[in-house]
């Protein structure tokens, strides 16, 4: 940037992975602009998915930091901790905070994440110890409520509820997980794969009440829809999450289930971008618009937003849902959409399902113990994202964990013989 140009003012709402990636995107293009981050949480960016590993004592608060201690200073970032953005004055390009501060901006990025969705359960107020499981502070306060004699009821058998269950199992007397869905991880696993994972979780000591959920609460008792009752000491609510869209919705910007963004992370409001779990983007594996609330996507989107905000060129054209999640040594990897023809491989230690349609890989599910079953997964993910025709790809070899070795010779030589 030449000296005569004005220093650009960037404001980022949210200090998670998308916000951090936005900083890195801006700095990849503009080394001098002023960056201000509005952080509702009072922590430097940390690895949110690690809160269950924290409770499992596989990491600690120090190692959970997403970036090194010098990150903000080195990047010239001013972080306003404990502050909440309450209103965007988009006509004059100013952001109003809860303490009356007004931040002028040239480019604004909303990376506000999502919030736990708590259904209006009857009697929830009568429950003494209840927690969500979204933030480091949630994990720290849940930890204080746990003793070796604690009975825990978790409402929600999705990614958040089950990682919480795994994280605390060794520290409490019992963990029961209930969900209205008839299977675990219903957002990413089909029925058969879900039953493999459920058995693994049960073998390790977690109890389930599926196809049933809490109807109401009375103190330490949950009365289920089926009429059964569950006694508990600690309740964890992991029913679902809602994208934090209100800043954009309130000024008439386009919002569906998330803030609508294009491939450059522009919202419908000029000068305002959005990234991460609060957005709704395009899933190229299905062609559908959806909230893809996963950490890699938060980074990709945040980096794209930052780069574009700073006048650089970047776009995200190949987002897909994808997950890698493990419980007690059994991993499940999933990506894309489960449509088209299914190709299956079953062994003692793993179950693989690949889905192809119109000579394109659409999605896969791999579930198993050990790492060998997953060696080819990254190549499969890349094929889903690129939508490259499978001609030349040795599908059988890919299935048998060949990874990039299964690609056609020309592609392989390009990858292993040159700079990629």
């Amino acid at each position, binding site marked *: 940037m030449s000296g005569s140009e004005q220093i650009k003012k960037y404001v980022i709402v949210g200090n998670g992975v998308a916000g951090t990636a936005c900083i890195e995107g801006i700095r990849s293009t503009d080394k001098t602009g002023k960056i201000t981050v509005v952080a509702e949480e009072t922590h430097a960016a940390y690895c949110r998915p690690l809160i269950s590993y924290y409770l499992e004592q596989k990491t600690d608060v120090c190692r959970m930091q997403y970036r090194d201690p010098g990150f903000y200073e080195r990047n010239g970032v001013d972080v306003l901790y404990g502050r909440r953005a309450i209103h965007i004055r988009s006509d004059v390009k100013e952001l109003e905070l809860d303490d009356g501060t007004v931040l002028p901006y040239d480019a604004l990025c909303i990376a506000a994440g999502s919030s736990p969705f708590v259904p209006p359960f009857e009697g929830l107020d009568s429950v003494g110890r209840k927690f969500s499981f979204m933030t480091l502070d949630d994990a720290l306060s849940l930890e204080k409520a746990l003793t070796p004699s604690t009975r825990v009821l978790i409402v929600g058998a999705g990614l958040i509820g089950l990682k919480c269950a795994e994280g605390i199992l060794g520290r409490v007397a019992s963990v029961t997980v209930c969900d209205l869905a008839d299977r675990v991880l219903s957002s990413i696993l089909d029925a058969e794969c879900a039953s493999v994972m459920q058995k693994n979780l049960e073998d390790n000591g977690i109890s389930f009440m599926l196809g049933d959920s809490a109807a109401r609460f009375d103190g330490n008792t949950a009365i289920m829809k089926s009429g059964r009752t569950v006694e508990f000491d600690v309740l964890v609510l992991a029913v679902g999450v809602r994208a934090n869209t209100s800043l954009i919705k309130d000024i008439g910007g386009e919002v569906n289930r998330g803030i609508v963004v294009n491939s450059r992370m522009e919202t419908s409001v000029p000068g305002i971008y959005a990234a991460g779990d609060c957005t709704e983007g395009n899933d190229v594996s299905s062609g559908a618009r959806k909230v893809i609330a996963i950490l890699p996507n938060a980074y990709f989107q945040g980096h794209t937003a930052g780069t574009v905000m700073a006048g650089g060129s970047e776009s995200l054209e190949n987002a897909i849902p994808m997950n890698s999640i493990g419980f007690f040594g059994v991993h499940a990897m999933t990506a894309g959409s489960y449509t088209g023809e299914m190709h299956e491989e079953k062994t003692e230690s793993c179950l693989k399902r690949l889905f192809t349609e119109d000579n394109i890989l659409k999605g896969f599910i791999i579930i198993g113990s050990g790492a060998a079953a997953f060696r080819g997964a990254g190549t499969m993910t890349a094929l889903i994202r690129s939508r490259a025709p499978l001609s030349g790809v040795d599908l059988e070899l890919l299935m048998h964990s060949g990874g990039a070795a299964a690609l056609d*010779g020309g592609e392989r030589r390009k990858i292993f013989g040159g700079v990629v």
Partner: protein
Amino acid sequence: MKRVYVNEEWCLGCRLCEYNCAFANSGLTDMVEALRGKPVFPRIHVETVSAEGKEGQRTIPISCRHCTDPMCIKSCIAGAISRVNGVVSIDKNKCVGCFTCMLVCPYGALAPDGDGVMQKCELCVKNACGTPACVAGCPNRAIVFEERGD
């Protein structure tokens, strides 16, 4: 920067690269002591390649490309992967073994060590070799360490 490149036509499938890699990263000075009777977790893997025209089984050693836009760095849920002087490096102290990097690496370059923590080729910059042991020990020059563009 210098990277490891593969001339796959020259790969004999002998797997010496795997053993030299595991030895180089063992921290030990005696290869027999480092490898004999132990499970080996190398950071380079010899894979069977697609049999074009079925001319017989061929193999290719696969390790990190130290690519220009590493998906593993952007996707790591623990912030454990970063680029240090061009080398894509993993902080094993931060890794929690979630396998997300395996899910996103298009080349299949990452795998866990014996303890479930991820490891990858770091061009032997963190061990006593200082230059890739797989290359030094390849009997047919199927893997080389050199500058090619960028």
